[in-house]
């Protein structure tokens, strides 16, 4: 099943890049390879890899569970409900929200909220999580902003407190 997914994705990727290459010259001047020469070769390589992987996985599945199992999506849905995958998805959602909020609230405040939230969601007690988050923000401020002079995103509204 894994190889089938990889195969389909590789095929789609190859076709997508061939589509993108349609307006980019393949050859220039006296027939020298143009800017789309290499991307086109790689798109074809991607398509070939995809087809090989799809065929291999179909042959393998024919030998075991049968061809139709390739198209069954039940195992995928079951996998999605899996606790491990849910944990990863929750983390991605919180990280996306974190990055979205950085320009509005500034780096330090958003980081404080993010660290606190992630720790609490994954089972750390609120008090402990707050202590760790505050000390980490303080450490980041001293090390990166104070010593290394790294420029961190400031809030759109602008404030020294929020940075």
């Amino acid at each position: 099943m894994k190889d089938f997914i990889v195969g389909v994705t590789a095929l789609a990727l190859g076709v997508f890049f061939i589509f993108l290459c349609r307006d980019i010259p393949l050859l220039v001047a006296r027939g020298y390879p143009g800017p789309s020469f290499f991307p086109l070769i790689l798109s074809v390589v991607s398509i070939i890899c995809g087809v090989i992987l799809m065929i291999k996985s179909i042959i393998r599945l024919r030998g075991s569970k049968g061809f139709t199992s390739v198209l069954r999506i039940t195992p995928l849905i079951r996998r999605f409900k899996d606790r491990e995958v849910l944990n990863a998805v929750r983390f991605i959602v919180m990280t996306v929200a974190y990055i979205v909020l950085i320009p509005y609230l500034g780096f330090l405040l958003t980081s404080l909220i993010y660290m606190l939230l992630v720790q609490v969601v994954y089972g750390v007690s609120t008090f402990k999580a707050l202590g760790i988050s505050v000390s980490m923000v303080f450490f980041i401020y001293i090390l990166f902003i104070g010593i290394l002079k790294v420029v961190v995103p400031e809030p759109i509204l602008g404030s020294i407190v929020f940075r």
Partner: protein
Amino acid sequence: MSLYDALQLALQPNVIFAVIIAEFFGVFIGAMPGLTATMATALLVPFTYFMDPLAGISMIVAMATVAIFSGDIPAVLLKIPGTPASAALTIDAYQLGRRKPASTLGVDLVCSALGGLTGSLILMFSAPALAEFTSNFSTVEYFWLTLWGLSMAIVISAEEPIKGVLGVAIGFLIASIGIEPVYGYVRFTFGSVELLNGISFIPAMIGFFAIPELLRQISRPHERYSMQLLKGEKVFDQVVVALKKFKTVIVRSALIGTFIGALPGAGADIAAWTSYGVAKRVSKKPEEYGKGSLEGVVAATTANNAAISGAWIPTLVFGIPGDSITAIALGALMAHGLRPGPMLFERYGSLITAFFIIFIIANLLMILIGYLAIKLSTNILRVPRNILVPVIAVFCVIGAYAVNNSIFDVWIMLVLGILGYFMERLGIPIPSVVLAIILGPMVEFNFITSLIKSDLNPVVFVSRPIAIGLAILTIFTWVLPFMRIRRIRKST
């Protein structure tokens, strides 16, 4: 340039301080199962931009050196390799650790340092000579060299070569975003100004190497390990006996490690497995391997640290990274205006010699810091994942942002990180993708430029002796695995 100038540079207080801090960071990252030296390098690189070049690059060297040793600590105490480079020795080290954990780690530490020192000395003497040799290379030789690098990445790093090829194609396509290297044509930017200069390298590296690990760690936030406790024995108890007994193994493993480290795409993990395999084959007691063989531990740990130094040979000489760590470090070198190749040795002779001296210092300091790490190991291993992951995620964000002061780069990091997570789960090797991102534009530039210079004459690619040699090497890299498969099939 004199050795005295280089020593003065290497022994500056800020450089030594940076090395010590990086070694402590390396100890922590290496000892935490799941967090790798590559991830730590990706996190460290953006901050080296704000330091002087020698201190910044020294930090990467010192951190990686110690992290590879430190990865052996959970192997001994938990039966879990801290980094992939420790996987080869895990079973033997754990079995030995059940009886004497501290002294097993003591032998491991000293052998790691010896491996690292040997690799550093080989780097020190071979890199300048190789650089002089390559000063006459044209685009043709560089084309074959980069193509060979990519071929090695496919053949070595992938369990299934077809997925390695796919990984290289994906990396190549990612690298083709932005302004094309020969004609300056804009490709695949979808009108985005941020993408004109292509995908920022460091955010991409943080994404590919750090985010998948964070996702893996947070998937099981409450997992606890059962740990062997240190039993109050002396750390360096067995060292002298082991060094006398295994001196041949140490020398052989250090040489194997350095050589494999120097191959593009082959990192410390492959060096450790190869050295372990060779040691088992020539051992007088091969039956002990897998049941607690100190010889096996010595072979693997010496080789993995030697590989760390060896990987810098192609990185500094050709600009072709030997492993994932040097692939990322290459970005740091470029950011400081240090372009690898023969000119680097000519222009920055003192700096490069100072850099080599740092390798020696880092390996010597590792014995002291490694000793502390062994003593504190049980405390390091108790840091819970649900606390560690959000903290590292914040460091990833600040690292990705700091390169260009751009939130767009943070998004690039996250998107490529999620892509990397799924690619890993589906068996596409990330090192192949990363190597293609670095070498892809070089292959394209050298191929097209060679054709333009020769007015489309393909014979140009085999018109010089070194080019022919490199072409044969590239073909051989592809043919060898098939020949091995045929031989195995015949014998069975």
